[in-house]
């Protein structure tokens, strides 16, 4: 079977949250298509619905209406076990708060998904070491998350997300808890993985440095897609504060 062109499609996804007596419409009919191998950034202010969209795509939460298709499979049709299988094999997750298991070493953390995939202990460890080398942390395989810096923890998280050879990586504010230099390294790593390994990357983010490496940028505001831009059409200026000429 040929691989589908679109790895993710969402159709009119809606989600509401009830807060006390009020209802908040987090997503108000979002339809996006992501091609295999793309690097997509979902951008928007806090409360725009980008995390909700992210959760819907990643199968972390069910939308109230609309559909999400991963590899042309409707997520709503999957039962809990099939969903777990999908998360295990097809999707890799990266979070703002890293979410490493604190009682396990880096190696054990990266190896964990391979256990759920049925890999033997030796195979799993080999793969975990290899992935840690890819992210540049082979020498720290024995350290627990508390012994690693934020950037290093995120690298371990990235290695973990690749454990079962996923087609799709979902990154929720991956640089949110990192300083700008470390953040830039992480973005660079993700870009490398996207270009060299062909893994589709979808990232929900505030970080403007992410814009530079994306193929397309989806801007979300108030639960709807405001616009979708190609990187080529953007002109990005990053810098400090700009004072108008003549002022001091």
């Amino acid at each position, binding site marked *: 079977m040929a691989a589908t062109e679109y790895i993710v499609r969402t159709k009119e996804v809606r989600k509401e949250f009830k807060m006390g007596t009020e209802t908040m419409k987090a997503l108000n009919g979002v339809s996006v298509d992501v091609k295999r191998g793309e690097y997509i950034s979902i951008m928007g202010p806090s409360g725009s619905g980008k995390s909700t969209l992210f959760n819907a795509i990643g199968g972390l939460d069910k939308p109230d209406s609309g559909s999400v298709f991963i590899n042309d499979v409707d997520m709503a049709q999957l039962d809990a076990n099939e969903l777990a299988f999908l*998360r295990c094999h097809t999707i890799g997750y990266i979070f703002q708060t890293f979410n490493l298991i604190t009682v396990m070493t880096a190696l054990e953390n990266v190896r964990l998904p391979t256990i759920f995939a049925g890999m033997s202990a030796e195979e799993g460890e080999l793969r975990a070491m290899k992935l840690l080398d890819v992210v540049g942390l082979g020498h720290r395989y024995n350290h627990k998350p508390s012994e690693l810096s934020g950037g290093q923890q995120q690298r371990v998280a990235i290695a973990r997300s690749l454990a079962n050879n996923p087609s799709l990586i979902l990154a929720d504010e991956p640089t949110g808890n990192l300083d700008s230099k470390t953040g830039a390294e992480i973005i660079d790593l993700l870009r490398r*993985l996207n270009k060299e390994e062909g893994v589709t990357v979808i990232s929900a983010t505030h970080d403007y440095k992410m814009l530079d490496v994306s193929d397309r940028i989806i801007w979300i505001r108030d639960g709807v897609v405001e616009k979708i831009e190609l990187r080529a059409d953007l002109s990005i200026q990053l810098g400090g504060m700009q004072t108008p000429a003549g002022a001091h």
Partner: protein
Amino acid sequence: MPEGNGAASAPAEKPVHGKIFMPFRVVVTIALNGLKIRFWRSMVTASGIFLSIAFFSYVLTNLMLAPNMTMDERHRQTFLAMISVVVAGVGITNSMLMSVTERFREIGTMKCLGAPDSFVVKLFFVEAAFMGLVSSTAGFALGLAAALVLLAVGAPGVEFSLPRIFTVLVWSVSVGVFITFGAAYFPAQQAAKMPAASALRTDI
């Protein structure tokens, strides 16, 4: 297709239906590892079980072995034993609920890595079973020792019947494991059924 260094070779389309592997041995390893790392935390919960079962075992040993107890005294002792079990149950439930709650994020993460719901339930049950078993046995020993010492001192000529002591052992361990399981049941189910997003949204 881009040629990489093999870290994630050209991902083709993957099937949706398949099995998640969760050999029980692995669940046990992760559970015991977790208990070992959270040793002191587990000790607090365990000592709750330990002390309550110790008291329970003490009372039961008395009931079984003490000669010439009045009916009144028997009733009082039985009542005490039952109360101690209830108190133990409440304390252990609280500890278990706290333990599950502080691990919500960990559970949510595991689900993202592909852990099925059954894994989460099994994990907590193995922990509960192990803790219940070890603590109850230790508690039984303490209660028994206390009762025997006091009986030997206060009522010489007491018959140390092994079958009866064995009955106390069986009762103590059963009660201990039963309440520990019962205490873990509801929180574990709750954790297992939570959608991964809510588990991760927890601000703990």
